[in-house]
């Protein structure tokens, strides 16, 4: 396996936590992984991005020019990054924050989910990233939902472990959007 995913949204949507979670779960499944956060002078509400590369062999570049998959959580990210996705790749788009319909591209498979609405249905708007995690995991088959649940214990501070069941519920709701 050699998979990469580029994740983008605005600060506060849990982009970095999502990247951490996917990476940690993949490591727990025995793979090699790099998690590379954009590290800059971004301020709250600004752009947030990260790249996760998962491989059965040694991970090469943590930087990916043309990702295989992208999780784009707001309109600005779609505008900026959609066209970078490799032909044959996959885009997971948060249609809740799209002013126009999600872009269509014959060479990129697009799955648009109204993630904000789904998150609110589960119980908290901040669960957008978990809806995305579930959908991405089911779609790519890269990690099991159970691994993501385990990884939550590692990447969330202890004081937030009480929210894990809610996070898992959001992941399941995300995964349900993927029809095989």
């Amino acid at each position, binding site marked *: 396996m050699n998979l990469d995913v580029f994740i983008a949204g605005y600060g506060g949507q849990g982009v970095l936590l999502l990247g*951490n979670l996917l*990476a*940690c779960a993949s*490591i727990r499944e025995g793979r*090699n*992984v*790099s*998690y*590379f*956060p954009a*590290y*800059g*002078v971004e301020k709250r509400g600004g752009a947030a991005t990260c790249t996760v590369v998962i491989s059965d062999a*040694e*991970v*090469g*570049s*943590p*930087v*990916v*020019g*043309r990702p295989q998959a992208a999780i784009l959580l707001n309109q600005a990210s779609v505008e900026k990054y959609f066209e970078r996705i490799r032909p044959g790749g996959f885009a997971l788009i948060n249609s809740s924050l799209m002013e126009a319909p999600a872009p269509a591209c014959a060479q990129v498979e697009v799955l648009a989910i109204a993630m904000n609405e789904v998150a609110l249905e589960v119980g908290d708007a901040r669960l957008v990233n978990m809806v995305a995690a579930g959908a991405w995991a089911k779609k790519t088959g890269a990690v099991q939902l159970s691994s993501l649940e385990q990884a939550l214990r*590692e*990447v969330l501070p202890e004081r937030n472990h009480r929210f894990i069941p809610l996070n898992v519920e959001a992941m399941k709701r995300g995964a349900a959007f993927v029809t095989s």
Partner: protein
Amino acid sequence: MDQRLFVKGNEAVAMGALAAGCRYYFGYPITPQSDIPEYMARELPPLGGTFIQAESEIGAINMLLGASACGVRAMTSSSSPGISLKQEGLSYMAGSELPGLVVNICRSGPGLGGIDASQADYFQAVKGGGHGGYHLIVLAPHSVQEMYDLAMLAFDLSDQYRIPAMLLGDSVIGQMKEALTPHARPQVTLPAKDWAVEGKGTRSAQRIVKSLYLGDGELEAHNWKLHRRYELLREHEARWEALDVEDAELIVTAFGVTARIAKSAVRMARAAGLKVGMIRPITLFPFPGAAFAEATRNAKKVLCFELNTGQMVEDVRLSVARDADVYFYGRPPGAGSLPTPEELYAQIAAYCRRSA
């Protein structure tokens, strides 16, 4: 010990230092390395160690000098502008034959610059950034695991040769997270620190740590002694990683994060049928010149990638066979200016096609 942890590069270097027996840290915060002092501030006191946030970078390097003179394993860390402030102390440590670890998680410059990953501190690190014509042992990790492993190695080499060691990272390696398998420090036999100023006790002779040699011919002899150690390092301690160089017609070289990106580009080139190999220097001083000399007996083209406008390429040119052609491709850092594997692959493919 064999559980794989999910760790940030900056934390890995701190973990490696602690596993190597470092119990004293002196530093001053600066982005993008502040995770290192943060980790040390939390972890050193329970181990009986000492963490001091110094009043400045200059204070920190001189505290390191003092601790090292007492024979303990100690370190400091900073990022490019902060490392510049430490140069006087580094020169004094080199002159005083004091070991110790200095971590530089480089950011872009010159001056205040920015916080993007950069390799523009290569000259400063390997050519002696302070006065007096000294060298540091310089190690360039390209993964989170190596941040841990090379922190350990840096302490051992530094103690063995009595030369300060620098771990030259960058903000990508410092901030990225990967799997890390912690392990115990390798068993190595190191010379006794019979020079450490730890109190005279019952000894008849007083120990003195100094870099001031006023006697007739003393300083020249001292400098020749230091020089011989640098020669020993060149002879015995050059380290590198070689990939697919046996049948290569083109050798790619890069260090640190750029080597990671280049590795992917080299794999793309191999997949496209191009005979490309790679040499990744792990020690920047001593520079693994022999590896280049050997590889360029057959491969006559060398392509050097750096996140600057060309620094290591000078050492590459000095090392290759006389008739080898050395080409450089680099970018000075700036927001979003990290090269991609695709970009480096395009350079490789174009250079392969070019007649020498």
